[in-house]
């Protein structure tokens, strides 16, 4: 059940290497997190191409399955390495006792099936001259992950999003310049529905940063760009959806214009709310909440870490300004979460102007959770001492409860919200 008031948040669980070690193994760094539609299952992908799945048992999550989803590859034609890092995971709607999920790296999307399989012992019959059947005995059952489909060779650029349609059959995948429409059962063919590649690549000024289908309307999808715009498209209008139906972009505040304005306006992630009424978007310094029926301006803009605005030059030099933070909404849309540096992330109750700040620090996992009014946030954060190498980029909100899963380096943190007294 969702709490009516801001819940009391507490640390729940920590997965991954628990000791503080100097060198974090690159392959263990969390790169994708996703709850399934019931919240009973949680999938976590890392830079090493692995996916670990947890299952909810009472209030805790327990290990369910693990598999190697992608391997590093080499593109011989372009002489480029293709990383095995999992960029996104999306769960398919349940059709039976098995689970299906889509995972993707930069170039290839895969459909995986997880199910309980009975391990069988087969004994071949003796040769008696009469035909007989091998006998089969079940020894034990285990969870098996099998690759069902591989959707390859459809993207010239790096895939940043995948999103399943409410029709239960199709999904889209987006790279920097194109969005393709697939049928989950057909891997040999996909249709291109958005193409923003200019005739002359020298004129390239904008890339796609995220795309997703509307949760209820099978014909609507949106995509965000590096220029800070969100376009809502209707697949019913045309086969090639280059024209949009709705356009969401907040014009720039001239008083804050700087050399970095365009870079920080790039939207790193955008999501529909569960009922499809709102769109949440994250750019470098802010979160914006749009009502889908009002293109003029967002209904709410939240400044995440305004104290970094004066440090943009340093952040540019160090490339941190290009970090892509994810954002999520709670099921009822009343709360939004997003991350920042120094392992800090925030949960905003945006209608009541209350924020909970968390520091996902494995040395003190239970402390460092504070719920305060908006205006008081970040007061004790000193940009000079912030560790910019520690960032909460990936997270997911449970679809039914106040429960949040956050990735911090090679750890997964779970926090639970308990109803306020």
């Amino acid at each position, binding site marked *: 059940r969702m709490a009516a008031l801001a819940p009391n948040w507490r640390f729940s669980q920590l997965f991954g290497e628990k000791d503080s070690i100097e060198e974090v193994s690159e392959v263990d760094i969390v790169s994708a997190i996703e709850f399934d539609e019931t919240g009973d299952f949680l999938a976590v992908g890392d830079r090493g191409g692995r996916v670990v799945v947890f299952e909810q048992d009472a209030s805790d999550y327990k290990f369910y399955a693990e598999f190697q989803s992608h391997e590093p590859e080499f593109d011989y034609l372009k002489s480029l390495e293709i990383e095995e890092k999992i960029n996104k995971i999306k769960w398919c709607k349940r059709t039976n*006792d098995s689970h299906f999920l889509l995972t993707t790296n930069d170039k290839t999307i895969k459909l995986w099936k997880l199910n309980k399989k009975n391990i069988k012992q087969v004994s071949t019959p003796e040769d008696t001259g009469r*035909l007989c059947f091998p006998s089969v005995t079940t020894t034990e059952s285990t969870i098996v992950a099998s690759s069902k489909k591989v959707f390859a060779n459809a993207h010239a650029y790096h895939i940043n999003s995948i999103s399943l349609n409410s*029709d239960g059959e199709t999904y889209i995948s987006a790279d920097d310049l194109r969005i393709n429409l697939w049928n989950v*059962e057909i891997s040999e063919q996909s249709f291109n529905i958005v193409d923003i590649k200019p005739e002359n690549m020298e004129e390239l000024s904008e890339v796609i940063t995220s795309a997703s289908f509307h949760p209820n*309307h*099978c*014909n609507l999808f949106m995509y965000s760009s590096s220029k800070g715009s969100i376009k809502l498209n209707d697949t*019913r209008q045309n086969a090639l959806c280059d024209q949009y139906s709705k356009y969401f972009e907040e014009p720039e505040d001239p008083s804050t214009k700087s050399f970095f304005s365009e870079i920080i306006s790039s939207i790193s992630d955008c999501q529909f709310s569960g009922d499809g009424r709102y769109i949440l978007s994250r750019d470098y310094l802010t979160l914006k909440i749009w009502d889908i029926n009002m293109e003029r301006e967002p209904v709410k803009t939240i400044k995440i870490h305004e104290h970094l605005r004066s440090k943009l030059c340093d952040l540019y030099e160090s490339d941190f300004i290009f970090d892509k933070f994810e954002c999520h909404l709670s099921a009822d849309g009343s709360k939004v979460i997003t991350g920042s540096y120094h392992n800090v992330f925030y949960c905003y109750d945006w209608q009541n102007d209350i924020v909970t700040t968390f520091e996902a620090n494995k040395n003190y996992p239970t402390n460092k959770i504070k719920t305060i009014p908006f205006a008081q946030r970040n007061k004790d954060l000193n940009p000079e001492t912030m560790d910019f190498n520690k960032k909460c980029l990936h997270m997911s909100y449970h679809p039914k409860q106040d429960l949040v899963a956050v990735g911090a380096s090679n750890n997964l943190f779970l926090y639970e919200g308990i109803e306020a007294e």
Partner: protein
Amino acid sequence: MAEQGDTKVVQRIINELKHDDCQVRTLAMGQLTTIAAALGPERTKDELLSFLKDCVDDEDEVLEVLASQVGCLLEFIGGNEHAQILLINLESLLGAEQSKVREKAVESCKQIALVMTPEQIQEYFYPLLVRLNEATWYTPQLSLSALISTIYPHISDDKKSELRAFYNAISASPTPLVRRAASANLGSFVRVIEDEYIVSDIFPLLKSTAADDQDYVRFMAVETCIALCSKVSQEVAIEQILPFAKKLATDSAWRVRYMAANHFCDLSKGFGEATVQAEMVDIFVELLQDREGEVRSAAASQITAFCQLLSEDIIINTILPPISELANDKDEHVRASLAGDVMGLAPLLGKTKTLENLLDLFLKLLRDEFYEVRLSVISKLNGINQVVGIELLSDSLLPAITQLAEEKQWRVRLAIINFIPLLAKQLGVEFFDDKLSTLCLNWLVDSVHSIREAACKNIKELIEVFGVDWAKTSIMPKVLEFCDHPNYLFRGTTLLSASALSSVVGPEMIDSTLLPLVLRMVDDAVPNIRFKVAKTLQVMVKFADPAVTKNRIRPALETLLTDSDKDVRYYAQNAIKAIPPQAS
């Protein structure tokens, strides 16, 4: 029963059903009928089928084969009175995750239903459908709608009303895929349901599918409309179905309009000429001018079919103007679709009207910059020729053909070569000699092998059209020149041509003209040429005079039998084996 050796083979197949390698299991599964034949009906029923029940926990490729093989086992169970036993194996496959597995399972079920008596269907098949309907997960319901139509005609009235209730339930399912399956199979259900229930059961279903939120449910309604029109009277069709047909053809989703456009003729037929002219013509014109290219393309493919329902006046005054505009469409696929269909209007309008109204359009399409458009026009020239005679087009035809003949993409060149004999027949020998023979000769030395091969076949067909005498003077000398070419690929062309020509030139020419050239290459430096000689001689043996074969061809082949290259020896041996006894 089978011999010892056979038993071993069958046992191996049985064991492979549980092999570790999925590929092996798939292949073994494809041989279930072999196993069943060896086991005999009793053991098949008792043991094989229970064993197979344990195999449903396997990969999709294996299950797909299993699903289709179960239907084939009908012959091996000791008579149709046992057919229901196969349903047990199919039940879980009907609810499989993969649509291909479900489809094969449905097909097998249909095969079984065909041989069952109504009593069997009522006792065994019907409960299966009840269980599918009550399943926890939705996938079994996807197969349900396909099977309802299959058994409906064979069961009692009270069960029929249950099935109608099932159909209503799945058509209102919260899962879009289930509604889609229901919508897709509604046409088949219409064909078996009694007339009295059309109004009470089917029309409401048509209404709900045509208004469904999901595009892919709505566009299935097009087919339902078509099925209904053939079932009800014209008055009822106009009153009840026409509104839906119109709605679908003007739907906001382009995919639905596309389905309507693609089936527009069938969709309109049922309403009668008067209504079509009053109501459907305008909609058709709208579809021809639709903002989505795919829809315009689909509409263009229906022009000839739809115009057969209309009067000449309407065609000329209402349909032709938008069609002429389509020839200028910015989307080349639309223009190609138009070109592939519009020529069919010529017979409808007759010679004079075609000349007046359509000729310019054809010429325009013939000069289109996109090769597929030009190719489509040329492929349909036959229809034009019957009505107006091709000479009118010949001025534009030649540049079009030449351009296509020189296209960079070799598959385009290949396509035009295949039309040459047809064109030659219609344009006559003078036109050909004058304009097209150079093209045909150039193709013989094209850089792509498939083109050279097709060019040789082309020459052969031209000889069939124009006769051997024509060939002797005009084309053959040039074709056979290549045998002295320094490039071995082109010497090979001569051999290809000789092969192709052998069947049409007659034994005399084979002996006088073709054979000497071929024999000259018996000692060619390149082994590829030498073994091609052997292959060519093998073909020539079929058409040459037996004496010639004995005296000239056989000795040459015997020389090749002692060649240093083993491929040459191999082909020479094949050729010798092919020599019939009377020529040895």
